[in-house]
């Protein structure tokens, strides 16, 4: 059903106003969603997935479009993440691979980081979901089971399919959240939280205001590798980001996306390879295998999990290829 369900759209113009509005809605027990570019939320609304009566837009809040090497506001459009704007090349690489150019002109950095997790059994129209008797993530009050892995009613295994998060992770980004209960900052790595329904640490009424990068991020180089069927507009089926300080393997950081419910870094796998001593292509091989073994994709995207997992090895190898030069 493609008819958008009705909702009230709010347009706060300052962070304070936004927080006050959120607090007010929470107090009156009214559910709401935040919307930035709308390219993720609105298609789901059209499919009648977890719709809310209120939607608060971040679009008119002052200062949310800051763009520099050190700071990226939540409303920065993906199409503005360019090297000309001083954005780190690895982020640019990932951003340029998100969806299609049309969507990138609307989609935002904040929206991409807070992307809803995706699943074959979830991103469907209402009639379709009725035919499977709903699912855990959008159970319509039925307490439905997970359809990917049945008979486990505790976890949602929907997949996080954002491209930009792993690149920000390997550059050491910090996210800044704000809400009625005040502001807080934390490393992007700790922002994401299992499971596919919880997705991240954002509490009710809280939203992601901006991302900052450490000064030394500029010294890092790296790469983002994306697996997808079509080079245009497909979500990643697997993604691997890597960064390092030029000529220094010990500085290597690797993060993966689109393989589990959250994107994450792989410090243990990197450490174990470095411990054995860096030996060029042999180490790359060991590292690729270690990262591959550490991820557990499930069958809820276009390509089968076994294949996606196999490809993590290839993507990792390609992501760190620059380290061998």
């Amino acid at each position, binding site marked *: 059903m*493609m008819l958008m369900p009705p909702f009230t759209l709010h347009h706060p113009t300052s962070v304070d106003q936004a927080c006050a509005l959120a607090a007010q809605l929470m107090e009156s027990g009214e559910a709401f969603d935040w919307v930035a570019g709308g390219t993720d939320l609105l298609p789901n609304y059209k499919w009648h997935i977890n719709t809310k009566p209120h939607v608060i837009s971040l679009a008119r809040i002052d200062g949310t479009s800051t763009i520099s090497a050190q700071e990226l506001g939540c409303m920065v459009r993906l199409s503005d993440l360019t090297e000309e704007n001083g954005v780190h090349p690895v982020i640019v690489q990932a951003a340029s691979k998100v969806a299609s150019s049309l969507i990138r002109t609307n989609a935002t950095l904040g929206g991409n980081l807070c992307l809803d997790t995706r699943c074959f059994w979830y991103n469907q*129209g209402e009639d379709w979901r*009725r*035919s499977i008797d709903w699912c855990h993530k959008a159970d319509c009050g039925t307490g439905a089971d997970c359809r990917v892995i049945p008979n486990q009613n505790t976890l949602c295994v929907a997949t996080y399919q954002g491209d930009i998060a792993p690149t920000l992770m390997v550059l050491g980004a910090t996210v800044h959240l704000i809400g009625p209960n005040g502001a807080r900052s934390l490393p992007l790595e700790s922002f994401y939280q299992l499971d596919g329904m919880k997705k991240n640490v954002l509490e009710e009424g809280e939203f992601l205001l901006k991302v900052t990068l450490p000064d030394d991020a500029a010294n890092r180089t790296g790469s983002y590798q994306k697996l997808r069927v079509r080079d*245009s507009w*497909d979500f990643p089926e697997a993604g691997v980001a890597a960064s390092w300080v030029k000529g220094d393997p010990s500085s290597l950081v690797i993060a993966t996306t689109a393989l589990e419910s959250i994107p994450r870094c792989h410090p243990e796998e990197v450490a174990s390879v470095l411990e054995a001593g860096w030996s060029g292509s042999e180490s790359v091989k060991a590292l690729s295998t270690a990262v591959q073994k550490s991820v557990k994709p499930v069958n809820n995207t276009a*390509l089968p999990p076994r*294949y996606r997992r196999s490809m993590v090895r290839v993507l990792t190898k390609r992501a760190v290829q620059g380290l061998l030069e």
Partner: protein
Amino acid sequence: MSGGYRQQPGGAGKVTRKDGKRVAGKQAFPPPGSGGSKPEMAPRDLDFIPEMVGGKEAQPAGAHVHDRARTGTTVGKPTALVDSNAKVTGQAWYGDDVRLSNEVIGKILRSPHHYAKIKSIDTSKVEALPGVLAVATGADSPHQFGVLPVTKDEHAMAVEKVRHVGDLVACVAAVDEATAMEALNLFEVEYEVLEPVFDPKKGLEDTDEPIHWRGKYHLARTNVQKRVFQEFGDRSLVEKPLASSHGKWNMAGVHHGFTEPHAVVAHWDPNGRLQLYTPQQVPHYTHRALATVLDVPMHQINVIRTFVGGGFGGKSDPFPHEMCAAILARKSGRPVRITFDREEVYWINRGRHPSHIEVKMTADEDARISGFDIDALIDGGGFASFGHVTSYYNGVLATAPYELGSFHYTGARVWTNKPASGAMRGHGAVNTRCAVEVGLDEMAEQMKVDPIDLRLANLLPPHSRTISGFRITSNGMREALEKVREGSNWDDKFRQMPLGKGIGIGCGFFISGSGLPIHWDPNRFPHATVHIQVDMDGGVTVHTGAADIGQGSTTAVAQVVSEVLALPLEMIHVRSHESDTSPVDLGSYSSRVTFMNANAAIRAALEIREQLLKAAWEILGYHPNNLVLNDRRIYYKHDPAIGVSYLKALHKAQEDKGALIASGAYRSPPMGGVHKGAAAGLAPAYSFSAYVAEVDVDVETGMIKCTNVWAAHDCGKALNPLAVKGQIIGSCHMGLGQVLSEKMVYGRTGHLQNPNLLEYKIPSVHEMPHVEPIIIESCDPEGPFGAKEAGEGPLLPILPAVVNAVYDAIGIRLRDLPLTPDVVFKGIEKGMKAAGVDDPLDLQAPRVEHGSLQPVLVERAAEHKIRDRARQRSEDTDPYVNGVLFGFDPNIPLEDQVEGWRMATEPDPEQLAALGLAGKAWLKKEQRHMGGDE
């Protein structure tokens, strides 16, 4: 004067400004057609007049019966489609663009179950909802319909059972969409869930509750809707093969993926007639089905075909939602509009059948193809649709372009609890063609010969008969193969490129119009009729029922009329939208429109031309044989100064009778065999094509990128080369989707997992290779100006060309379509195991060293080339039937000269045990032979 002659009488008004421009409203209107804004007659365009009638257009394939009707006006010239302005300015009215005053919105309640009995439907709450104007269920529409008269198994809404998730259960009309959607939640339906069948192999087995019941014709208690057996030729030829190929294919179902979702508006006008607006490829069948379902005579229904936003076969069935809209409109007394969401489009489906295809083939010591043995089990989903025909096409359309020693086909179509499969571009021929062409590639490799030479030395010539009795007329297969070989630089690339780079060949063969009009006797009624009317203004109105679905049939009809009458295209107005005004036409399927409709249009235009020339004769005193029809002027052949304007001649012709009217029709000639199923695949002409594709395969990921395609298609004569090239490129796009990324994914629970355009992966412009369209013109003797189809045939070769190219790149034969990266990677892993390597980059690309058969084939191909040219130009008119290559005499029936020559449509009892997967359907008996006839 630029070689032109001033129109006359023309230019009556002389009111002009000093600067020479006209003054609006002040000038006498010049008689249209006598010049208008183009007062000069254009000179004859000799480049587009055939050499046989004095022009400069080369005719290597010989003369054509329509040559004398050529005027050099539009035929053969790249022409923008006549409806393109409406489309690019957004003014074309597609299904959902129809807005009638007072309209209400219809929505359909769909089954949440794969298979269930409907025990009861309570609509009382729905009816009580304010804003709801009408509710209908299966009880309102007991009459069955279906696109084929032999398999009417559909209802407007489920009557007893629902047969797949998304099957129609009930419908509601309400004042707006939100109310209609709310109403859907108020239906109370009680179901008794039944055990569904998803696997077509299971469909061959007996079951308690078959999805449909055909009474005494039902095959035991299975879900087999149709079984086919066909065997021709000398089966002893396959016994000692020099080479053989045996491939088991698994092909996923694919959908047309047209842009416009289905939409319909129904309105009962004040006189009680139904006006139904729908984007249909085949409005006439909808017309018939509506009459049946609504119990209203056909003359009380006007079917209005809106612009069609892509069809490809997916809008050629009469659809249940069209019936629903009509029923709701009748009940509510208001116009009702129903527009589908994308997931509803996938649920109504009619896409290409998911198929299990097994092909065995053999070649003898002379590298002749001694046998094709094809078994096709196709998954029909919940309804019959076109499946009866598809069951035949999967076999019989593989009987050309090659000469075969024998042919054996078993096919079965089974019902499953999935959305119904149906006709899709290249109907029934695509999957088997892919399997056959890949098999040939494999045999060529075994025989150490070039696969193109293997094909060139085994082609049926023009004007021949296939092993199953199809009459081949023009045949440009050889030229197509030669052109792509040359264009792609094949001889420097094949089996010579590094690992990961490959090149492959594939051919195609397709009908140019189904020879049998399924609703009537072809010997009594025509396939197509066209009416032309020319009134005093000189404009030509053409009435045709041909459904333009974007392929440009309206333009083709306008072009041929414009060509015959030598009038600019702007003066031809095609009216094809309404059944009230259009003569009956079977619609846009089986690639019939240009061939049949343009032929009918030429006939009608010739009649008008005759009347014009007769009038000119009376004015000028020269016999029509000495008159030339050129741009809005008719003149004496030997002195162009002596002439008369088109309009003057027209008015002369109109004296005493007013507007000129002519009717033209097309009927196919008698043809084909008499065996059961002989009509399936019969066509008045066939198209041929050969493609070479080049691919890059990432051996580490299995990702395939098709980089270049050389695509040669024999369309007889390109009436509009721009449209033909568009069809070729579009076909490549669609075929690439099927071979590389598109599939309807049915998951663990049998649900269609990807009913949307994000997860149903149609290639985007980024995935498109460079396509070099090559038009081959074999000048078909019966086609309009020599033309044959170009809409479906060009899709066929791209699949095998890509699969063969992937083999050339990585040395691995893959037979699971689509070749998504995971499928390719799985193949690569197997290949690595077989080769004993750990790194895919260490795999070896295949190489070839030609054996002793290669020069034999080259020599035979060269001889055949001379043979074919003589036959094509009718310099050699001796009969040629499949079998001559094997030494048989074409003048004596084959069964009289070959012991064991078979022509069978049922298996011999001793064959039963050895039949393939689909062939197992022949182990079952029909109810009437089982003693039961329930």
